[in-house]
């Protein structure tokens, strides 16, 4: 030790080790300040994409069961609520919640005399809890997939409402697929994955010849009034229907006696209405 101090080599070693520690610390600082947030963002974006895929699979399962009409048949879809984060310090860890409510999202199809042709109800809502990116809310109401990010609603999957106008006969037909989601109201949250099992309990299709002068009204209880208004308007206008009193259809919105918002779509001079009502049991496990 005494020799080392005398010839100066020990001092050199200490200085070089200090320099290496300095380099390592500055590298770590750069990684923490720049890369980890970027990685965290990337992990969250991937989680968002996967959740959307999962909910598309859920809708696909409901469509498939409804079309097949195999009562008692089940299909399962995975849903990932969040991410446990990446391997480095768990960056990108995010959680989410899933709520199923069998009473919300009521849809009714009636005429002006008060005759009810069909009803649908039940919503599935996913809410993310992200740190680096904007949170998203994905809702499935009346089969429609709606993503809300930054307060803006985007339709990711249209509802099963099809309007067809025959150019030759001028006959207008509307097809409506109504989903009734039953099962216990469920609310789960966390970072893990769950399975949603969809079982078709019953399926019934009806076709109605609509008498002249009968107005058919579809009322949708929803918080997303603007998006539903635009969607229904586009669906009708794509077939050449004209909006306005005395024309082919009217759209209005408002709130019921309890203050719940709704959108009302009235179609005049309809010739044929086909309604399929599918009752599902959704179980989360």
């Amino acid at each position: 030790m005494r020799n080392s101090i005398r010839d100066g080599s020990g001092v050199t070693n200490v200085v070089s080790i200090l320099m290496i520690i300095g380099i390592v610390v500055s590298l770590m600082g750069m990684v923490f300040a720049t890369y980890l947030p970027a990685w965290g963002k990337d992990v969250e974006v991937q989680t968002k994409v996967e959740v959307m895929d999962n909910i598309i699979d859920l809708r696909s399962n409901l469509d498939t069961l409804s079309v097949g009409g195999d009562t008692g048949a089940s299909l399962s879809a995975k849903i990932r609520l969040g991410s446990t984060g990446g391997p480095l310090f768990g960056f990108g860890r995010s959680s989410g919640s899933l709520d199923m409510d069998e009473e919300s999202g009521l849809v009714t199809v009636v005429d002006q005399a008060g005759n009810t042709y069909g009803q649908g109800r039940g919503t599935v809502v996913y809410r993310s809890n992200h740190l680096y990116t904007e949170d998203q809310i994905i809702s499935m109401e009346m089969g429609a997939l709606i993503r809300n990010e930054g307060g803006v609603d985007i339709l990711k999957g249209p509802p099963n409402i099809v309007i067809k106008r025959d150019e030759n006969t001028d006959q207008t037909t509307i097809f409506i697929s109504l989903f009734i989601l039953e099962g216990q109201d469920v609310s789960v949250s966390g970072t893990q994955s769950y399975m949603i099992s969809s079982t078709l309990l019953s399926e019934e299709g009806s076709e109605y010849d609509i008498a002249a002068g009968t107005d058919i009204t579809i009322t949708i209880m929803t918080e997303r009034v603007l998006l539903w208004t635009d969607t229904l308007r586009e669906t009708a206008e794509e077939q050449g229907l004209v909006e306005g009193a005395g024309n082919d259809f009217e759209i209005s919105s408002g709130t019921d006696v309890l203050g719940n918002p709704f959108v009302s779509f009235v179609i005049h001079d309809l010739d044929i209405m086909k309604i399929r009502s599918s009752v599902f049991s959704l179980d989360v496990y």
Partner: protein
Amino acid sequence: MATAVMLFALMLSLGSSFLLNYGEVSGKENEMHHLTEIDSSFMRIRNSMLKLTRSEDTSTSIMNRMTLGTPGNPYIGMARSSGEFSMDPDPNHFKMEVVLEDGATDPVLNSVSGSMYYRGNNYYFNDQDYYFEAGGIFINEYDFITRSVMPSVLIQQTQTGWIMEMEAYDLSSSAWTATGIETLALRINMAGSFSNVITPFPGQIISLRVNSPNEQAWAAGFREVLRIQGLVEGVDFSLDEPVDWTDPGDHLEVDLLTPENFQFNVGQMEVSLI
């Protein structure tokens, strides 16, 4: 000082070697997994078409999805693969005709055309192209073509012979192409369907003529499917293969020599992007 610098260099080289090797292996694994998913997506689309055809449902639609690329890995800067998914209604690219060969006029009784394809653009694993033709799924990897699944063909043995039933999907609606890495939401619906039962007279042959870039896989698939269900090549059926598999002017011909009847079920499908 020298020891410290050497240690530091060793750490750096070990770190970069790990990143390079792990990135390669992980990237390859991701891409292989993604290709399996593409195959599954086509299978789900086919299943949706089958549901709509069986229930003769022209009103509603079934939602599906197709993911074009891989997500990559943010920690090691792994490249993301992309892909191209197209709807190609052109009958010059795929067509299957059912022809009644009677030695004279050979009338075409029915046909389906149009196809969908996915072309992968991978960085780590081999590129693969997937074709969906009439309900069959075919894979092309560096011009080696194989089948994932053939269109549904069912042979039923009867006391006096055999009958054949085939499901096929026509995709002759609009054309579109999507490229990128994201997930596409798709809407599958049926414009119409028809079913023909053809009962040949003695001396008549029912011939299935396939014009496709994947004729080799079609030939191998038909041979296997028909043999597995108890038919004998040269007795019950025969294959007339094109001289040049790559010649779009030449076609594969599968002759059904002795069926009592042949039922051809066709769904005229529409696949659209949401």
